[in-house]
């Protein structure tokens, strides 16, 4: 358009536009266009959302297993009174690493990881928005997690609890670098999560298939959209907090030092302003899984779609008004605490709306009791129990009694494992055929489910009682004869049962990859768009972009036009649609795979890790980061010529 258009046009392949119905040549060209390059360099340059999504999911489950092993050591230690297996220092690191891993490296990332893979498929898009940024977010997450475990192996693992309270984590009481590794891990994971939030919001708003107006997007996509918005407003708080912590430790600022006008409670406010929404960042995607699985296995559309969406949004808003209920044991005004009690109780309303809608869907459906549905039914059971203890803990007087006891540990595991991990396992069974083209074994799945369900309740139910009889959390051992021995032993046996069920799960995932029954495009007879394409999907997701007329496009009668024509199959061209009604708006060409996101992530990692040891790392390492980012953004001449061929000015 500006210069060199004609000069360039000679060497550039002329675009081929797709047709409807698509031809085999279209499909082959699309595969070539959207495939990630081969080889190690190609692997490091990959930007396809499915490749990144699978890596993200596998990495997150890797950290889940690592965090689970840490928990297993803790349960082994607590199985008998006065056990000498683990000393107090290692035990502090164990529970800190366990909590940090599960919250920062597993629960939030795994939800984003699943959505990285699924959201484009569910909304009829060829890719996520900003595919290179998506790759960068993955590498940053991976490097952050590896840094934390490297520190742990070197005996500099964080040991001040997953919420790293000051003054314990401050310069006076935590000498050495342990707390710094914790603070920088937060920087890594939150950077990754924030970028993913931007990517997801942009994708959902602008890349939906024509006709998929906002009131037709799958509820899982709604859940991830709401989650992404929450991430944007919650996670900055913990980044600010951990930034202040590392500044206090590294360059002697006084944010949390009461001797110089600082305040320890500032940490708690900032941390829980993030920390409470964090619970919902984990839980809301879980609700999304449930809302995706139930209609398929009840064989009817969800009951009360609009009420479900409004309930999700209401939950997200309320989640920001709850943080002080983690601080009832501090010297805050009683009136303020009453407000937070009230908001905590209000959460029950949108939660109940959703539960009633699911029950109505199940009640009026024809149920198909496969493994994903089992996990969803267990979710109801466990979540309701966890929700009820939540209502109890929202009362200030009861909270003061139960604060820092195993009652809280029981509550949070009921909510998080029941609310997120059970639906997540159901989701893996549900979408595994889409990821791999093969079904997971139903029989192993049932063993996996029942062992997990029984093991979970054996582990965590006794913890309610342990808390009520006074066992504090985070103690590395306890004397015999306190009345705690039997319940601790039961909990440890339960933990072993969970471990066995996770092993079965991993075996099932591994074996089904090659030996599972071939799934075909839509093994469950589901209604959403990801099931309309091959399993596993083509590199470009859809041979032709579908046009949507309802909430379950695959259950709706066929209407013309059915697909989009006129998008290049020889270029990474995608269609952008309007935010509300998803009307076709403009086209754009997505960038090619490149090594720069990986290089930028390496440079950023060097900066973050370096800054643990000297503030000057921030200054010196900014240079390679800047160079890498410029390399990333600088347009490639060949790509530029390709874009010009397709260019049409607005």
């Amino acid at each position, binding site marked *: 358009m*500006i210069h060199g258009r004609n000069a360039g046009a000679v060497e550039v392949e002329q675009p081929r536009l797709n047709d409807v119905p698509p031809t085999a040549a279209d499909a082959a060209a699309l595969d070539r266009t959207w495939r990630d390059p081969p080889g190690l360099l190609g692997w490091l340059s990959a930007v396809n959302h499915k490749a990144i999504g699978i890596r993200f999911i596998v990495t997150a489950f890797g950290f889940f297993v690592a965090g689970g092993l840490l928990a297993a050591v803790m349960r082994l230690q607590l199985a008998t009174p006065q056990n000498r297996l683990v000393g107090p220092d290692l035990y502090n690191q164990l529970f800190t690493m366990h909590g940090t891993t599960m919250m920062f490296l597993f629960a939030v990332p795994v939800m984003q990881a699943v959505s990285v893979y699924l959201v484009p498929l569910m909304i009829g898009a060829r890719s996520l928005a900003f595919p290179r940024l998506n790759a960068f977010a993955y590498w940053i997450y991976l490097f952050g997690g590896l840094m934390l475990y490297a520190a742990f192996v070197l005996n500099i693992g964080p040991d001040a609890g997953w919420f790293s309270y000051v003054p314990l984590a401050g310069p006076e009481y935590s000498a050495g670098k342990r707390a710094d590794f914790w603070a920088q891990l937060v920087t890594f994971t939150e950077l990754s999560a924030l970028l993913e939030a931007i990517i997801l919001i942009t994708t959902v708003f602008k890349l939906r298939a024509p006709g998929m107006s906002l009131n037709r997007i799958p509820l899982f996509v709604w859940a991830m959209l709401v989650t992404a918005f929450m991430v944007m407003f919650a996670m900055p*708080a913990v980044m600010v907090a951990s930034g202040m912590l590392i500044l206090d430790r590294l360059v002697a600022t*006084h944010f949390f030092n009461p001797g110089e006008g600082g305040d320890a409670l500032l940490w708690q406010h900032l941390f829980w302003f993030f920390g409470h929404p964090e619970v919902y960042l984990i839980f809301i995607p879980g609700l999304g899984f449930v809302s995706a699985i139930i209609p398929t296995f009840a064989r009817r559309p969800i009951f009360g779609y609009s009420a479900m969406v409004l309930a999700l949004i209401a939950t997200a808003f309320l989640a920001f008004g709850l943080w002080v209920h983690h601080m009832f044991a501090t010297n805050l005004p009683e009136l303020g605490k009453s407000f937070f009690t009230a908001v905590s109780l209000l959460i029950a309303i949108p939660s109940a709306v959703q539960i009633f809608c699911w029950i109505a869907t199940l009640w009026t459906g024809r149920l198909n009791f496969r493994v994903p549905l089992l996990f969803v039914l267990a979710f109801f059971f466990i979540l309701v129990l966890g929700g009820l203890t939540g209502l109890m803990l929202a009362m200030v007087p009861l909270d003061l009694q139960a604060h820092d006891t195993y009652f809280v540990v029981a509550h949070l595991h009921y909510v998080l494992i029941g609310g997120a991990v059970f639906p997540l396992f159901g989701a893996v069974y549900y979408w595994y055929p889409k990821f791999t083209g093969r079904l997971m074994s139903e029989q192993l799945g049932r063993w996996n489910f029942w062992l997990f369900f029984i093991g979970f309740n054996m582990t965590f139910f006794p913890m309610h009682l342990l808390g009520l009889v006074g066992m504090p959390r985070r103690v590395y051992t306890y004397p015999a004869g306190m009345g705690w021995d039997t319940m601790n032993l039961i909990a440890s046996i339960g933990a072993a049962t969970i471990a066995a069920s996770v092993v079965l799960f991993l075996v099932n995932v591994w074996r089904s990859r090659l030996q599972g029954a071939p799934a075909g495009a839509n093994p469950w007879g589901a209604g959403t768009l990801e099931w309309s394409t091959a399993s596993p999907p083509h590199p470009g997701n859809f041979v032709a972009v579908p046009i949507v007329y309802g909430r379950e496009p695959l259950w709706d009668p066929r209407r013309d036009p059915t697909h989009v*024509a006129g998008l290049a199959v020889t270029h990474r061209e995608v269609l952008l649609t309007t935010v509300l009604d998803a009307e076709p708006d403009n086209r754009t060409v997505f960038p090619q795979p490149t090594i720069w996101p990986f290089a930028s992530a390496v440079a950023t990692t060097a900066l973050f890790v370096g800054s643990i040891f000297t503030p000057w790392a921030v200054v010196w390492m900014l240079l390679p980061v800047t160079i890498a980012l410029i390399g990333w953004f600088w347009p490639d001449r060949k790509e530029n010529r390709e874009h010009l061929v397709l260019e049409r000015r607005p």
Partner: protein
Amino acid sequence: MRLHNEAAMERLKEAQARVRQRGAALDVSELPSYGFSHRSLMWWGTLGLMAIEGTVFALGVAAYFYLRSHVDRWPPSGLPPDLVWGTLNVAILLLSTWPNHWVKRVAERHDLRSVRIGLVVCLAFSVAFLTVRVLEFGSLNIRWDEDAYGSVVWLLLGLHTFHLLADTVDTTVLTVLMYTGPLEGTRFVDVSENALYWYFVVWSWVPIYAVIYLVPRYI
């Protein structure tokens, strides 16, 4: 200008009207290959970044007032920051919205010559601002490690400076690119979004200025 925008809207409507059905196919080949403002992905990305960074600034300001509420005398040392350089920077930033607004408009008109000139002017403003910013740090009358007040003031000013630095690097790269190429239509979208981000840097400075310089004097 308004006329121009309306003309652009018209062209867009025409383009959309060119989406046509052929049997089972919806042909979109006549659609434009990029769009400005909320039509572009970059706009949404920039908006997301602004939301996140706006939250960071808001939390920094909240922390400032939280610490303020814990002591009687503010600043504890009694000496507020000198007004001169900070106030000068407010003036520079407010003035800089003019070239930024202009470069955004000419970018949307695909006027390459004006975009090049406009970007250089914008860059000159950024450099002027950054230079005065160095003097600002010197006129705070407190170090970050003296007390919590000093820490939070340095945090606020540091955070804002970081954004400024990032946008200056960004503008520099874009300016060079607009001179050297390779160019295509979406580069004009980038220029437009770069100006949008600059507005954010400017309008976040106004409240932060008020907090750093006026609160210790008047509240």
